[in-house]
């Protein structure tokens, strides 16, 4: 190994570099956090089911009778450690056991003293992009699995891209089967370096790479330092225990109204789950789409009349005056309102065999609001290259950019600002099936943007500044709109002088 590579590697191995792990023991608290939702992605033979099986097994989420059923089902298929075939824990449907593949999203539950976890286990096959998107829609963190002998695959880029699009900002790279490389440190470092470059290109900064043997249980729940003394970073479970749940949304108060509660003449309350910000009695709010203004008098729950409610709380809101509010309306902060309009830009994942047809009218459901929409595909993401190619229809599993045209006022935040009020599904009125999951990127103004579809803004920046910009969340969603040129600091000054000139 060359000297620079070593230096580089040490930096990475000194690990969790971005997640900033406390050097000493983490503060010990019992169940003080919300459950962490995570998704696991990997190619067919990366050992994903074995990894999750190992997590369940080592956290004692698997009970003896389930293990006995496993032993019975997997007779002859036990691994060389005499443990049951963990993969069978997860492949719950008969067809899956018969075919030995995972065909649908499975949800699994386990916990440690510090936190509980909900894992969406999704299929690795290319044709199941839609299932991965489904699992990723609610996840806070993605665990990407690679085989240490094989390294990153096209699938890895595909999965990382989908996870990023669905709003996941924390990645763990599990370099699995490290035992089969004789615990080759250089190999681990090479793969993690390559992955960091990929993550950076997607705008993801929170990356932890861990050398793992799921089969032997090294660096999953128990540490693997006996085999890998060179690795002093966290185990997988340590990273998961310290990861953050979806942070409080940055935009103002949002309450999509699910139903109006009128149990008697004297009470009228608006029931829903706070989708952003917070609210307290006395706050001024606007009801959309009508635009009427009112003040909050009370926040009612079964247990008590509350002083405040925050994102995630299921509440009943009482206002100070008679206003017309019905299901599908949104009650929002007066000083921080969402976007309203008839035309929006969005990205979506096509989930069904029919794909997304240009000009077809679908039902769109977002929060509690359902309305008619016409969908015009504009481009499709090539998951191999990360480029957007022009497209006027989207086949199943495609990720595309579309224009949405509504008959009635629509109300959204961008997905980047709010993963609830910026998300929607499309329902085919002919089949009633869910045909797409989508994320709002912008409101379309009548005049169009400052540049046309294919034109890009050119940014010439000093290299370090360019890297920083590329890594920002803000820029991640607009990457394709700009071409970033790395120049020297001197050259940058020249350019600026020219402009000012």
């Amino acid at each position: 190994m060359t000297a620079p590579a070593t230096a580089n590697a040490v930096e990475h191995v000194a690990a969790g570099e971005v997640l900033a792990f406390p050097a000493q023991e983490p503060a010990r608290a019992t169940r003080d956090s919300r459950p962490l939702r995570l998704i696991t992605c990997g190619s067919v033979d990366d050992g994903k089911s074995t990894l999750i099986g190992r997590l369940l097994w080592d956290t004692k989420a698997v009970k003896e009778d389930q293990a006995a059923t496993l032993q019975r089902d997997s007779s002859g298929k036990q691994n060389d450690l005499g443990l049951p075939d963990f993969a069978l824990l997860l492949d719950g449907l008969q067809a899956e056991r018969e075919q030995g593949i995972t065909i649908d999203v499975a949800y699994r539950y386990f916990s440690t003293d510090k936190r509980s976890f909900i894992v969406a286990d999704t299929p690795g096959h290319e044709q199941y992009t839609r299932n991965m998107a489904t699992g990723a829609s609610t996840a806070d963190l993605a665990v990407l699995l690679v085989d240490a002998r094989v390294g990153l695959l096209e699938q890895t880029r595909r999965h990382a891209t989908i996870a990023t699009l669905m709003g996941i900002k924390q990645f763990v790279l599990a370099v699995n089967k490290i035992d089969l490389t004789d615990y080759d440190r250089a190999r681990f470092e090479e793969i993690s370096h390559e992955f960091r470059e990929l993550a950076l290109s997607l705008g993801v900064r929170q990356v932890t790479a861990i050398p793992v043997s799921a089969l032997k249980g090294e660096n999953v729940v128990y540490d693997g330092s006996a085999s890998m003394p060179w690795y002093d970073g966290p185990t997988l479970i340590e990273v998961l225990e310290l990861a953050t749940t979806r942070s409080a949304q940055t935009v103002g108060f949002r309450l999509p109204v699910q139903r109006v509660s009128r149990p008697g003449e004297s009470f009228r309350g608006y029931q829903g789950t706070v989708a952003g910000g917070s609210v307290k009695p006395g706050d001024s709010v606007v009801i959309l789409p009508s635009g009427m203004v009112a003040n909050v008098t009370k926040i009612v729950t079964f247990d008590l009349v509350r002083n405040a409610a925050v994102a995630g709380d299921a509440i009943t809101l009482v206002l100070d005056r008679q206003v017309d509010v019905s299901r599908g309306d949104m009650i929002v902060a007066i000083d921080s309102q969402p976007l309203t309009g008839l035309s929006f830009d969005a990205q979506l994942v096509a989930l069904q065999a029919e794909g997304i047809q240009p000009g077809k009218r679908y039902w769109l459901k977002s929060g509690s609001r359902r309305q008619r929409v016409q969908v015009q595909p504009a481009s499709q993401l090539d998951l191999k290259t990360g480029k957007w190619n022009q497209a006027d229809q989207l086949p199943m599993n495609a990720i595309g950019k579309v224009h949405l045209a509504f008959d009635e006022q629509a109300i959204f935040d961008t997905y980047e600002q709010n993963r609830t009020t910026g998300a929607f599904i499309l329902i085919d009125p002919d089949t009633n099936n869910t045909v797409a999951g989508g994320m709002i990127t912008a409101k379309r103004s009548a005049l169009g943007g400052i540049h046309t579809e294919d034109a890009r803004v050119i940014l010439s920046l000093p290299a370090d500044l360019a890297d920083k910009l590329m890594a920002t969340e803000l820029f991640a969603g607009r990457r394709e709109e700009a071409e970033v040129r790395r120049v020297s600091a001197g050259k940058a000054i020249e350019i600026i002088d020219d402009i000012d000139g």
Partner: protein
Amino acid sequence: MPHNLPETELHNPQSAKPPLDPHLKALENEAIHIFREVAAEFERPVMLYSIGKDSSVLLHLARKAFYPGRVPFPLLHVNTGWKFAEMIAFRNEIVERYDLDLIEHVNPRGAAENVTPFTHGSALYTDIMKTEALRQALDAGQFDAAFGGARRDEEASRAKERIYSFRTPDHRWDPRNQRPELWNVYNGMIRKGESVRAFPLSNWTEVDIWRYIQAEEIPIVPLYFAEKRPIVERDGMMILAEDPRLELLPGETKREEVIRFRTLGCFPLTGAIRSNATTLDDIISELETATVSERQGRAIDRDQSGSMEKKKREGYF
């Protein structure tokens, strides 16, 4: 009962409890959201009520979701006629205490033909008295949505079931063709005759259920707590020997043991466990060290691997 609540009464007197921990709070919020969404989107929802601990939590969440209003749908209890006597007494008390609408359904064919777990075997008995009975009751009520207390951690095929689980007009579940479910945006669009089973407790585990029962002081059937009770051992299970219809087979003897039940169903098919857990704290600490899953006590799950998936495809809950 009128719901003309004076404003001062909005403060629920039983609220001197400490706040829920964030984990249970998140699960509660999710369940309430699902209850409200289904109640708003469907014309005739119903809640399947089996009297067990999960049903008790489900009912509590429904009351919270619609407070200060009443629970806006009836409860449906599919009675096989072989439930524990204490379950029925508990059910009647709860219905009265919380001012609920209860529909009780017994399969008339099964009753007429005297289908019992002893004469027809557990598989056929379950098929007629539970699966067929449930279909009859749902059809009779023309219910387009049915809430259930199923949890994904219970059994392998349930791990992949959606929160809104679509059913054909003949109540079948097609596990290979489920609607994708993204974020918390649920697709409730169905045609006439089709229906949805909605599972607000999908993401709860058994321990969550017990912790929540403790935190919220939710009443449950006393059979969950250990006590000295008469039992008889049959097929490797300890069966409660209280009901006069239980006839001892040659070689069987009745004896007393300190036992409790981890799940409740039909008494002849539900095995007790030896336990000294007499309080919720005891139950929770017993669970945390348990080495077997809760369904281990259920005879109907044992027929074959994938038996639950098969039952579900046929319309069993």
